[in-house]
């Protein structure tokens, strides 16, 4: 038992060196959220490409949770929204209501090219517009679909870690 304790003390902490802090301008709400951000994901009309990448971003390889971001199941529990896809006609009102349901202070991250500027679906008959046309957006993630690293980088802007 004693030798085990000695081995533990001898080896010490084994981990990668902490990466450099997030680069770029932090959204307004980031300061008040103090490093812990509960995230609600809203699919406003995505092709599910972004969903796969978000899944990867919160998976064991990219592990966004180590930076303080966590997916939750209701906007009532959330600090931030992760919106993917163009905003379709059917999802415009639910998106607005979801935004209203999030407690202050809150932030919105538009994930993927569709969410930023409608991408390839621009001008389609069922599309209301980009996410910024429906709710105020604080951060954007580029890509179709975006790489998990970029999603994690955007979330790090919110958590500040």
């Amino acid at each position, binding site marked *: 038992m004693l030798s085990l304790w000695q081995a533990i003390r001898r080896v010490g902490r084994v981990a990668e060196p902490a990466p450099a802090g997030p680069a770029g301008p932090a959204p307004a709400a980031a300061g008040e959220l103090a490093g812990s951000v509960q995230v609600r994901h809203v699919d406003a009309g995505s092709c599910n490409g972004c969903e796969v990448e978000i899944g990867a971003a919160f998976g064991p390889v990219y592990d966004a949770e180590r930076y303080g971001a966590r997916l939750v199941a*209701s*906007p*009532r529990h959330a600090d931030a929204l992760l919106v993917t896809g163009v905003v379709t006609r059917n999802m415009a*009102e*639910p*998106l607005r*209501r*979801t935004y*209203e*349901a999030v407690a*202050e202070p809150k932030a919105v991250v538009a994930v993927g090219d569709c969410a930023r500027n409608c991408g390839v679906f621009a001008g389609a008959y069922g599309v209301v517009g980009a996410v910024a046309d429906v709710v105020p957006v604080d951060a954007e993630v580029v890509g179709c679909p975006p790489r998990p690293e970029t999603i994690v980088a955007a979330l790090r802007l919110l958590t500040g870690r």
Partner: protein
Amino acid sequence: MVAAGLLGAVAGVVAMTGTAWSVALPGLLPLTGLEFDVDPLSGVFLAVGGAVAVAAGIFAVGATRHGLDRPGVQAALPAFIGSLLLVPAAGSIGTLLWCWELMALTSLVLVVAEHRERPAVASAGLWYAVMTHVGFVAIMVGMLVAAGPAEDGSFVAVRAGAADLSPAAASLAFLVCLAGFGSKAGMVPLHPWLPRAHPEAPSHVSALMSAAMVNLGVYGVVRVGIDLLGGGPSWWWVTVLVLGAVSAVYGILQAAVGSDLKRLLGYSTTENMGLVLVAVGACGMFAAGGDRALAGLALTAALLHLMTHAAFKTVLFLSAGSVLHATGSRDLDALGGLRSRMPVTTAAFGVGALSASALPPGAAFVSEWLLLQALIHGLPAPGVVPAVVLPLGVAAIALTAGLAVATFVKAFGIGFLGRPRSGAAAAATESGPAMLAGIGLAALACVALAVGPTVVLPTLADIAGGLVHAAPAVTGTVAIELVGVTGVLSPLLLVAASAVGTASVVGGVRLLARRRDRRRARLWDCGAGPLSARMEYTATSFAEPLQRVFDGVLASEQDVDVSHHRESRYLVAAVSYRRALPDRVERRLYTPLLHAMTTWGRVGRGLATGSVHRYLGYGFVTLCGLLALLVVTR
């Protein structure tokens, strides 16, 4: 009606305090005459019946004003109340049977009052008529056997003659009387009429039947078994106890899964009468075993439970009547949202439901506590049968109490709170002042019994002690103190403590919530359309887990029909789901019985062909047979 009820209640209270009186009217009826003899035990039932009649009578005034009552009902109701009050006052077998039959007939008229509106009423009336008359025959036979050695039919003579009765004859008399009186009390398996007839009658009649009339079944068992036959062997009372426990559990189980408000209350009556029979059975068992103190305690519990049951069942049935008047529905799945539209009825039903669930500030808690005390303190009793029956009785009471809470949470929560599930419930209006006065009076009685059972308990203990020849089992003015066994309970303190506890929790939460900044936001509904009443729990869905747990007992019948599109079997056109919870006892016991009766009748019809010659032949053959029999036997 109110005056008659008041008179009955006053007479009962006077009799309870020990002033016995008797009236003999030998010329009024041929053969038997009428003989009334009110002793303290009669007094309890007179007082309870009279009090229920007062509340129901005031409610009936309002019901009549709204045109709910026909002239037939208005004529039969006073006669029913009169006979209801005369049954416990009867002092001889003939008088008891006469009043009993009058009560049965008048209540039958009241049950079938609304037969033009609903076809179910006729069927309920048929069930009630047949079962109540079979019960009457049983009581008659039993009482005649019991009166065999007596000089005449008066209770005094029967009591004196009971010692000369052979044990077999006494047992026969008791069992047959138990069947007759038990069917009136809704004892399983003689209960099927009760959940049919009680809901179909007008609501104030339901209240009278369910809160006052069923009590007389228990009165009969106590009067015949404990008073007239003087106790009897232990196995009589084990039978009563077991039947009572089965009734209690089965009744509340059916109530817990039902969704018809008045039918649910009817099954709850079976449950409560079951509990009273458990207490009566325990009393007889202890008395037969020589433990007089515990016998007195058990009988005191029975009498107090009769009283509390009468109070809360009156409130519940009258409130259900008020809801039925306002919405035209007694289906819990179509009610809801009545709190804001019918505040007084809702509050009264809440008081009744709290009392019925036997939780601490409620009225039934005290009586069930007394009963449990009696059963638990009886555990060291010698013999194998008590050692098996008493713990099972305690378990049955515990299960019953738990299921009763679920039942009344459902009845109150689904029926009155939430959002209205139908247009009728959304447009409900509060009933008139007379109806509300009747309900309020009964609710006051509930509260009074919850706060101050000690006002009536010593008197009840005196009466019970007098019947089993023991000292009163309960004393105390503020706290209930048991005599002979250790046990103290202060209902007043309990009520005060729960009131203070509730107030402090509610006040604390309010205080905490006031400090924070508030933002008014839309209720989160997943972003989709507004929440609708269809998303609420219904009575059926609330009871579904219970129904699943007890499926082995209830044996529900479920049916899922899936129809497909013609083009492809992979496309579903419609799914229909049906669920029925038939009364299993009725299905297993009465259906074969009725079937056998029908077959018997059909066979008998073959004998009657309509030919006069054949009928003359039957007479001739019978006469010859009789003569041959006489020749052989003499």
